[in-house]
């Protein structure tokens, strides 16, 4: 049942208003950070108040104004969007406090701009999550690109400059292709509203046109989701401050890309048309290659943030692969992995940031024995690493199990091997860090200087680590009940197509 409700609009507006307030309180850092904190809590409250309704089959919808003569800027909360909105708003709370600790302890400059751009990014992410049609989606997609640009550029040095240019080149180019694809979709179908199961049909245009449109649209998602060979910007963007890497390059920006891929697969083209076109298989194989290649590259990285970045690239392709398999369980696994990876990777990045702030170490080879001085941080790191590898009772297991079952359901058990290989590789590139931290002795006459612990940073880390444990043991905990939301989303997508998979 669809209901006109202003809450989707409010959810999108809260971060934007917060950004305005933040930039106006330039002179009072405490008040400035208070705005972000209040906004994050308000936002989560707003989103979570809709989750219950969505679980009962309600859809809240609101049209702000008309974008063009026929298409409106419409916000809608369907199960898939609610998953993403809940996730992003939930994780904004810990990352916000973490940011405060990080930016202050690391004595970063231009904090006002930082917090304002951060809030803008969250607002854009909310818009993307709740966008009801392709054009609205595109609007927020571009806003996200623009508002995350200053964050990549934050350090204002040569390296950041190059990284930001690279970032813009990738995202703007793919954005323009997305726009061309959107126009094409609108012209052949006359609509742009996301419909579970897709609104394009094979009689609307010749197969090659549909395939071309698919490539144009999926390219934009793939760039932000860093599917190889379109991943070049992500490792470069690691020059940004660590909380940015944590939220944007583990949650908001890259997840937006994965979310976009799922939207296009499930809500524009739909499993039925895609299985006729046969083009989703290409995407699936690209994802497999990405998973394997990025894991191998990650093994060779010494810089911790870069290693995590390549791990991100691989993990995101799990989601893409899940979507490209087109079966109910695979879609469900993909949505669950969206959540799971966000929770785990944000923990890992926050730990990396904590290490940087306290010891100014970036390279793994120098981290011998730091677990003795930073036990809590490194325990959380170990927990999240195990989660990435897919250990039972952690959140990563739930999603991977569903993904694997989805592959079997699709009759393509070969893909399960890819996930297994990737899990082993993940142990290979993350566990050595834990081993070095805990089981290697500290170097003689430790030259490293440890800064003071900031609870502002430590508590968020513990929060997300515990979250990954809780979601692993009871995935259907309410709020937010990601498990049932994912089930609803995938059921919607594959409803008209479920007959094939018994």
């Amino acid at each position: 049942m669809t209901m006109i409700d202003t809450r989707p609009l409010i959810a999108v507006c809260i971060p934007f208003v917060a950004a305005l307030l933040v930039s106006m309180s330039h002179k009072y850092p405490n008040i400035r950070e208070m705005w972000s904190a209040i906004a994050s809590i308000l936002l989560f409250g707003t989103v979570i108040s809709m989750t219950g309704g969505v679980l009962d089959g309600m859809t809240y919808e609101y049209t702000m104004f008309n974008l063009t003569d026929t298409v409106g800027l419409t916000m809608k909360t369907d199960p898939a969007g609610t998953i993403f909105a809940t996730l992003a708003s939930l994780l904004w709370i810990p990352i916000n406090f973490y940011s405060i600790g990080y930016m202050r302890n690391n004595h970063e400059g231009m904090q006002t701009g930082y917090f304002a751009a951060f809030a803008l990014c969250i607002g854009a992410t909310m818009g993307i999550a709740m966008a009801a049609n392709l054009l609205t989606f595109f609007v927020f997609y571009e806003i996200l690109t623009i508002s995350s640009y200053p964050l990549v550029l934050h350090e204002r040095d040569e390296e950041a400059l190059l990284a930001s240019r690279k970032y813009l080149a990738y995202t703007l180019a793919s954005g323009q292709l997305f726009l061309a694809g959107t126009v094409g979709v609108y012209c052949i179908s006359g609509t742009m509203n996301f419909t579970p199961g897709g609104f394009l049909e094979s009689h609307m245009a010749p197969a090659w046109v549909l395939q071309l449109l698919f490539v144009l649209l999926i390219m934009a998602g793939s760039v932000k989701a860093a599917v190889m060979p379109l991943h070049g910007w992500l490792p470069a963007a690691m020059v940004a401050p660590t909380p940015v890497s944590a939220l944007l390059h583990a949650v908001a920006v890259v997840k937006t890309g994965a979310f976009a891929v799922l939207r296009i697969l499930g809500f524009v083209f739909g499993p039925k048309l895609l299985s006729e076109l046969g083009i989703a298989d290409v995407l699936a194989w690209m994802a497999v290659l990405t998973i394997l290649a990025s894991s191998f590259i990650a093994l060779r990285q010494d810089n911790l943030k870069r290693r995590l970045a390549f791990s991100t690239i691989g993990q995101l392709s799990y989601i893409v692969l899940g979507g490209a398999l087109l079966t109910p369980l695979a879609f469900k696994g993909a949505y669950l992995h969206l959540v799971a990876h966000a929770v785990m990777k944000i923990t890992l990045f926050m730990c990396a940031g904590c290490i940087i702030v306290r010891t100014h170490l970036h390279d793994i080879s120098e981290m011998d024995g730091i677990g003795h001085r930073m036990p809590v941080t490194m325990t959380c790191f170990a927990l999240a690493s195990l989660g990435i590898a897919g250990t039972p009772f952690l959140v990563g297991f739930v999603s991977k199990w569903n993904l694997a079952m989805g592959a079997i359901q699709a009759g393509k058990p070969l893909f399960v091997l890819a996930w297994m290989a990737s899990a082993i590789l993940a142990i290979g590139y993350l566990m050595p860090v834990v081993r070095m931290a805990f089981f290697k002795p500290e170097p003689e006459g430790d030259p490293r200087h440890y800064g003071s612990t900031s609870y502002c940073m430590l508590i968020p880390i513990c929060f997300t680590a515990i979250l990954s444990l809780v979601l692993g043991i009871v995935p259907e905990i309410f709020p937010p009940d990601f498990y049932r939301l994912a089930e609803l989303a995938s059921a919607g997508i594959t409803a008209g197509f479920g007959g094939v998979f018994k």
Partner: protein
Amino acid sequence: MIFGVHSPVFIVLLPLSASLLCLAFSRLHRHLGGWVVQLSLLGAFLSSVDSMRQVLDAGGKTIHYWMGNWQPPIGIEFAIDPLNTAVLCMITFISLVVSFYSKPFLENEDWLHYGGYYTLYGLLTVGLCGMTVTGDVFNMYVYLEIMSLAGYGLIAMGGHKSMVAAFRYLLVGTIGASFYLLGIGFLYAMTGSLNMADISERIVPFVHTPLFAFAVACFLVAFGIKMALFPLHGWQPDSYTYSHPGAAGLISGCMSKVPAYAMLRYFFYVFGIHNTVMQSLMNVLGIMGICGILIGSVMALAQYDFRRMLAYSSVAQLGYIAVGMALGNIHGFVGAVLHLINHAFMKCCLFLVVGGITYRFGEVNLYRLGGLNKKMPVSSIAVCLAVLSMVGIPPTCGFFSKWYLMLGAYESQQYIHIVVLVISSLLNAVYYFRIVEQMFVQREASLTELHEPATKLGLPMNMVVPIGITGLGILLLGVYSSTLVNRIVEIGLPEVLMR
């Protein structure tokens, strides 16, 4: 409301009389002439809004205003339709805003130059408005010349190389005007009428004759020169670069758009696009547009003078409008009209900012703008908005015109246009983000202050407010673009597109 049924004529009459009296007032008091002209521009703006209200109240049906109640084909007619009034509102609004902006540049001038500037400024506005509103082809020629002559003067007032630029424009512009006159001659020979609505009916038997083809080609060249359509744009970069910085906003914003609009009116309302001559002409126009987009963008990439870069970018943007016209369907038409209005605001905003930088630092090199975000905050934000709009990032207005152009291109299956639009957006991104990077990232450039800022915003209030208004306009035009399209543009669509 204010002038009742006579408001259309006041749009032109008020600035015309004020400009002619301006020098006399200036003799009495240096500032008086400027005030009178500004007051008249306000009146013209209000009359434009009033005309728009009238025509929308009438359901979008064209209002014919007969001068001195002489009926056409003998008398001169002003035609008020929804599109005309939209363009009129744009011109008078920008003109009004920029007239405040010019003041600081004229601080040290004597009464003659002060008054002279506003006389020319007012006359330029008269020419622009007249060309838009008139329904008589010869009358349009008169306004075209008024616009051009005032334009030459304002460009020549810029100092430093501006004389050469103005003279060059004068030579090229005169050729353009002559072609226009020639075109009218052909039309008159065929139809025996000078009234647009009249011609559009009487021309029908002639549309397959060579004479018609000649006439149409003349109009293409004439307006092509005046709107700086590639490859007829040679005069434009110099003129924009060296024109008077106070008036550059109006010159760059409107002076090329109004000929483009006149061309659009001729093609869609007078000649009709469903005959073989016009079809092939549209193809030519499309190719010119595409080349203009690509070459303009590439040339803009190569510039280091901020003003010159903007000028070449204008060549590219005019190409968008040409492409929109050449598509010959509803979406292409809407895109062209929308881009005409949007681009006027974007370019005006950017030129106002450049003028501000010139005013304060005397600097035009775009690689020496480091740290400007601290020195001129409002201008920097306005530049950001304009840049986003140029690249076509929603919700700024530049996105929406591009959207309609793309829709139109799909509709008439001109996929090459889509490719060009995408490439051009990316080129725009390259050369515009360069500026943003300079302003916000690079180390502070050592600039000499020519005028110490009186306010914290870095410029006199007279300049900050217009910059802010045009910057805000970019955003509002984007947000309200559907209103603009649904309520105004689509009501005023030409009949040829309805078939």
